[in-house]
């Protein structure tokens, strides 16, 4: 993995975010993500990690970077959303569409691709996440783990440049966590750029290129997993690791 500047997929500097009630959620966050890199974001609840990755998708208000408001151009926001895929904690599959139609909807509407072409791609993606035979079912008929794998396939179907995961395993039953993590591991091996907010330490240790700790709306520590878990620099990281390990 090289880190030349033109390989940069995301470069955020000094991201600020206030909620309408005045809560200062992000207080100048810096983060760079390179092509093919897997970054795991950890942190206690309320540390702003979900808010942060949602700013990449313009789902959470406007971003302030270096004291200048950006991301107010509606056309650019749409463009960003097309190129950034997102997987949610609650899956958010469309319950009124079949699994296949969940995948086909956006590429046909947004990219204007032909239905037959997208369908073929969708079926191969479903095959990749191991649920090809469920393509004609409705989301309500699938288990949580299956739904989350469909959600990943749905995001991939738009061929995004980067995939964001917002606590993808937090609302799953324990026995279903693994099947979802396996899919994510497989994606990492295929050099898909990912930013993952999660509490899964093992996944972070094995898959991440870098682990980031956020607390109180700031990035506290940013290090390769070996260093992050074995030999953290900051006191705050140590305390956090004590709590979750």
């Amino acid at each position, binding site marked *: 993995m090289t880190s030349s500047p033109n390989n940069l997929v995301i470069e955020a500097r000094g991201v600020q975010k206030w909620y309408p009630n005045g809560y200062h959620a992000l207080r100048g966050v810096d983060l760079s993500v390179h092509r093919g890199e897997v970054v795991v974001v950890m942190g206690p609840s309320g540390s702003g990690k979900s808010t942060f990755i949602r700013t990449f998708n313009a789902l959470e208000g406007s971003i302030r970077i270096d004291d200048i408001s950006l991301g107010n151009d509606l056309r650019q926001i749409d463009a960003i*959303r097309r190129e950034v895929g997102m997987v949610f904690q609650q899956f958010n599959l*469309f319950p009124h569409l079949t699994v296949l139609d969940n995948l086909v909807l956006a590429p046909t509407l947004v990219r204007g691709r032909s239905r037959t072409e997208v369908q073929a791609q969708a079926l191969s993606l479903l095959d990749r996440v191991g649920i090809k035979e469920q393509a004609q079912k409705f989301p*309500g*008929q699938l288990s949580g783990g299956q739904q989350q794998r469909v959600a990943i396939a749905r995001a991939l179907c738009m061929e995004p440049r980067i995939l964001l995961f917002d606590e993808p395993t937090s609302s799953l039953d324990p026995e279903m966590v693994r099947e979802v993590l396996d899919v994510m591991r497989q994606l990492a091996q295929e050099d898909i750029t990912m930013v993952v907010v999660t509490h899964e330490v093992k996944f972070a240790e094995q898959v991440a290129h870098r682990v980031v700790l956020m607390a109180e709306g700031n990035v506290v520590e940013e290090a390769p997993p070996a260093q992050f878990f074995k030999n953290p620099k900051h006191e705050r990281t140590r305390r956090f690791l004590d709590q979750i390990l």
Partner: protein
Amino acid sequence: MNPLLRRLRADLFATPADGALSLGLIALITAAAVGLVQWATQRAQWAVIQANSTLFAVGRYPADQQWRLWLLTALLTAATGVTWGLLRCHPRADRDGTLWPRNDLVVLALLAAVAFWLPWVLQLTPALQSRWWLLAALLAATRWLAGRFGSQLSRPVLRLFPLVWPLIYLTGMVLISGGLGLMPVSPSQWGGLLLTLLTSSFAILLCFPLGVLLALGRRSDLPLLRWISVIYIEFIRGAPLITLLFLGQNILGFLLPGGLAPDRIWRAAWVLTFFAAAYLAEAVRSGLASVPNGQIEAARSLGLSYPQTLVRVVLPQALRVALPAMVGQFISLLQDTTLLSLIGLLELLGVARTVMANPAFLGHSAEVYLTLALVFWSCCAALGLGSRALEKRLDPQTLSRSSSQP
């Protein structure tokens, strides 16, 4: 003990008090039923309905132009038959694909019975009687043809088929009011069931888009749109319909430049539309509220624009949830058309009141009003049944329940 007897006992005679209550109720119901049957067969004189059946059906629509209404009825019948058949031969994955399920046979038998029985009761002329039979035969035939050969139709044809309905509606408007080479029949000559169905269908069709827009406005992030919707909805819902009809009849003329105000019947139809839209908006709003925010976020994160998100993701889910409440509003809208009789329009109830003013029929108001009640009850109950069937067909949950079993 026989299970039926055991159930009866548990249901009706569980305790002495229950038993006494049941006996009392049985006596009461029997007495009422016997009284009603006796009255209907012996004392009631249904001649008032027979003599005025045309008036009840179409009001003062000119007799030599009534073929247009028959033609429209035939068109509607054919379209109903084809739609029905197509629905059956393209069942959802979870339904059995029988061409003639038992429900359909029952409905068809019922319709046939009505088609044969009604002309006899009304003592229609043989010419009219045969028309009813032809209509019943047409329905059965189109239903059978569409069910038999519908599966051979190509996908684009099936997709375009629903357009037949608005087309028939527009054709119907032309047939009823004239124009395009047909002799014009002024709205003041429309009446009876024709006027009731015309105004209610007009209002139902138009209040739907208006109500959805108002509901979206009420949930909008833009304060101005929200306030306009709230003020409109609350204003309309605060006033009795009769005062709004009054507004339409007496004040609309002042609000528009001279000569622009439509005919009285159209004014009333528009008032009904605007009235129903406010109530419908509230039904749709509850549906919108039931769609989780995550659905919008997911659609937006896939790159769908706001209108695309609304049309493809939010509305399909919201309208399905709102469906029972919406049909409830349509049912009350159909009932509300009776208020047109209070501003002097001759819809069903208005016709009934003019008939009752004729001294020849003095003392037979019970027959007329009970018949009207039966007509309204059947229409409303049919709407309710249809809504429940549609709800079941659209609900992915029933689908998952029935087919996820091994």
